[in-house]
């Protein structure tokens, strides 16, 4: 399945190049591209999207060469996700910290030999893909879920974290989870997030009541917590990892129900930057093995996500 998926992806990527050839030999070329598009639509499933990264390698390449000659790694991160990527106001240096930031430092260390040779750029959720594609950042390490849709626009590393969508609401609220109790309620989600995609799809297919108001979207999932605290919305839908970090900032709100999806975070890079993708996958392998991943999890996340939860162990990677 993964092989077919990869093949399909390769075809889509090569589309602009195959078409001129196809004009010389219209019948087979045309058929082939048509088949490839259909195969792609049929075979890439979001539930398997995380199993399609390139195998790890530490071999040099043009992208790595460019980063080394520049002297620092440019990473798009979040500065608003508590314990993931955030600016601790009580940290006098004003440096960003969190689980994602640790990973970015580790990648910089493996590529450039110095974990501080990294320039962090805070980017809003809906700017993650444009920032990579325009070359403003080398990679995005920012609680970014690997999906088929995104695979068409950026390359992902192997998964480095397991999460799922969840509902967050005030403890006293009658909302019980991602179900009929959301009828007539205002639900907030981030612009350009998988949470919003699920909400709008489920509203159409009837899994959510039609009276649920999902019109409130914000640049950052944390802005949803502000709206919730100000009473402008009744609930928030976001990744359980981020929902937990929101709940950790306000004892009056709680996670409701269980995660209703299974998603994996990956490091996003530019399409075609194969040497960089392989290098990052190498780092992730090492990170898991030498206990760096676990150490970072214990430092930042075990308090909010628990030591025994399914998220507490790194997801195993399978490559295409």
């Amino acid at each position, binding site marked *: 399945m993964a092989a077919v998926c990869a093949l399909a992806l390769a075809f889509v990527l090569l589309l602009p190049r195959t078409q001129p050839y196809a004009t010389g030999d219209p019948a087979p070329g045309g058929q082939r591209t048509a088949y490839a598009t259909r195969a792609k639509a049929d075979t890439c499933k979001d539930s398997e999207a995380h199993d399609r990264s390139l195998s790890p390698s530490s071999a040099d390449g043009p992208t790595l060469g460019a980063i080394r000659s520049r002297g*620092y790694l*440019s990473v798009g991160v979040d*500065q*608003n*996700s*508590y314990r993931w990527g*955030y*600016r*601790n*106001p*009580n*940290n*006098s*240096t*004003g*440096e960003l910290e969190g689980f994602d930031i640790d990973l970015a430092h580790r990648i910089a260390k493996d590529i450039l030999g110095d974990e501080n*040779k*990294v*320039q*962090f*750029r*805070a*980017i*809003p959720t809906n*700017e993650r893909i444009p920032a990579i594609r*325009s070359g*403003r950042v080398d990679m995005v390490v920012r609680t970014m879920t690997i999906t088929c849709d995104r695979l068409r626009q950026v390359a992902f590393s192997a998964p480095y974290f397991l999460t799922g969508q969840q509902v967050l609401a005030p403890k006293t609220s009658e909302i019980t989870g991602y179900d009929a109790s959301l009828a007539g309620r205002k639900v907030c989600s981030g612009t350009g997030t998988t949470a919003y995609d699920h909400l709008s799809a489920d509203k159409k297919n009837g899994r959510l009541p039609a009276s649920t108001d999902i019109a409130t979207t914000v*640049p*950052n999932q*944390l*802005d949803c*917590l*502000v709206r919730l*605290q100000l009473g402008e919305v009744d609930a928030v839908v976001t990744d359980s990892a981020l929902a937990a970090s*929101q709940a950790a*900032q*306000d004892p009056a709100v709680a996670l409701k129900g269980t995660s209703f999806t299974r998603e994996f975070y990956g490091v996003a890079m530019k399409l075609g930057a194969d040497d960089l993708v392989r290098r990052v996958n190498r780092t992730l392998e090492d990170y898991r093995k030498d206990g760096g991943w676990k150490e970072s999890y214990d430092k930042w996340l075990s308090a909010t996500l628990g030591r025994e939860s399914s998220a507490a162990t790194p997801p195993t990677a399978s490559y295409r």
Partner: protein
Amino acid sequence: MTHAPTSSTAPPHPAPPRRTALAEGAERLRHAATTEPGRLRVIGAVLALLVVAFGTVTALQTTHRATAADDVLHRSQPLSSDAADIYRSLADANTMATSGYLAGLQETTATRERYESDIRTAAAKLVTAAANSAPGSPSAATITRLNELLPRYKGLVEAARANNRQGFPVGGAYLRAANDTMQNEMLPAAEDLYQKENQRLSADYADATPYPWAAIALGVVALAALAWAQRRTYLRTNRVLNHGLVAATAATTVVLLWLVIGHSVARAGLNGSYTHGVRSLSVLHDARIASLKARSNENLTLVSRGAETRTLKDGTVMDAYDWAYDQELDRLAKTLAHADRLADDTAGRTPVRVANESMKVWKSRHELARRANDSGDYQKARDRVIGTTAEDESTGECFDNVDTSLASALTHETNEFKQAARAGLAAMTGLPAGSAVLAVLGAAGAVLGIGRRLSEYR
């Protein structure tokens, strides 16, 4: 639709209509004009009427202008400068809030106090502005809106602060919400209020400065009539002077000269207060706003760290706040150059030049901070922006210098304005009352003078 004649009882020969009072009066006048005493009576009445009319119109027109001039000095200019202060306090409060957030635990008491005092100033000046706005007017609506937004803004900033203290990044989200409220709702409303107050100031200037042509024309006509009456008397009696008429002429001349000279002086003062005061004040105010906005954007560049971008016409992508900083600094440079041209003495020019020098240093230091940030050295960039020690060579120091210099330039120009406007207003003092009294005296003189001639016929 036509009406059939309803009555056939109308008398075929209607009685001659009763003559109106006007016709009767005209008839009597015509009759009187046939004799010299009658003519003298008419001349006396017309002269007295002309002089009284001149005095009345002068009193009315000068009262109107004096009121407008008084409004310029005591009402519309202070209100316009209050509105400018509201805008500045709000922008400054936001700049201090972002500085404080950026500094985190290193937030200085000075920053905090300046934020608090900005909020207090804005609240107090809103009360004054509200008291001076007509109920139901657009200004009143804007003031109400600002009064509603101010506590909301402050609530968001305090929530940001409380969450920051606990190390929660939701504090940053509250700060962004506060900044959005300020930039998108409050500052545009304050700008609107400032524009409206400025319109009122312009209207008051327009009411205070035009020449009182009606009064001047009446004065000239009255003098001409008096001259004619005296010449007539001279031709008929060979007496050169008629004391009453001379007194009337003197009084009218005094009022006319007083009116023309007094108004010219007042007008010069008011125009001076506009060119030397108000114009400079408005440019300096713009400069101060530009420097505040530039500072706020400089802070937000480091707070948002590239979270918002802007695509330029040539396709390059730039940090939105860095771009806005460039715009505001350009505007600051332009307005400072303009202020320098408008300044008319050393005392006014010095602070503007100091501000200009500080701005240049700011620009070069900002370049270093930007380079540090672009090369990934966030720590250094932050020190170069909010650093408090001299070796940091922070841009904050330059911003403070620009702001202080502009504040002293504003004080100087406000004094210039007040001096000129006060001189202008003083030139009109007593003119309405004086012209009324003199006109009554003049009219009495005319009546007495003619009465003297009349008595020769008894």
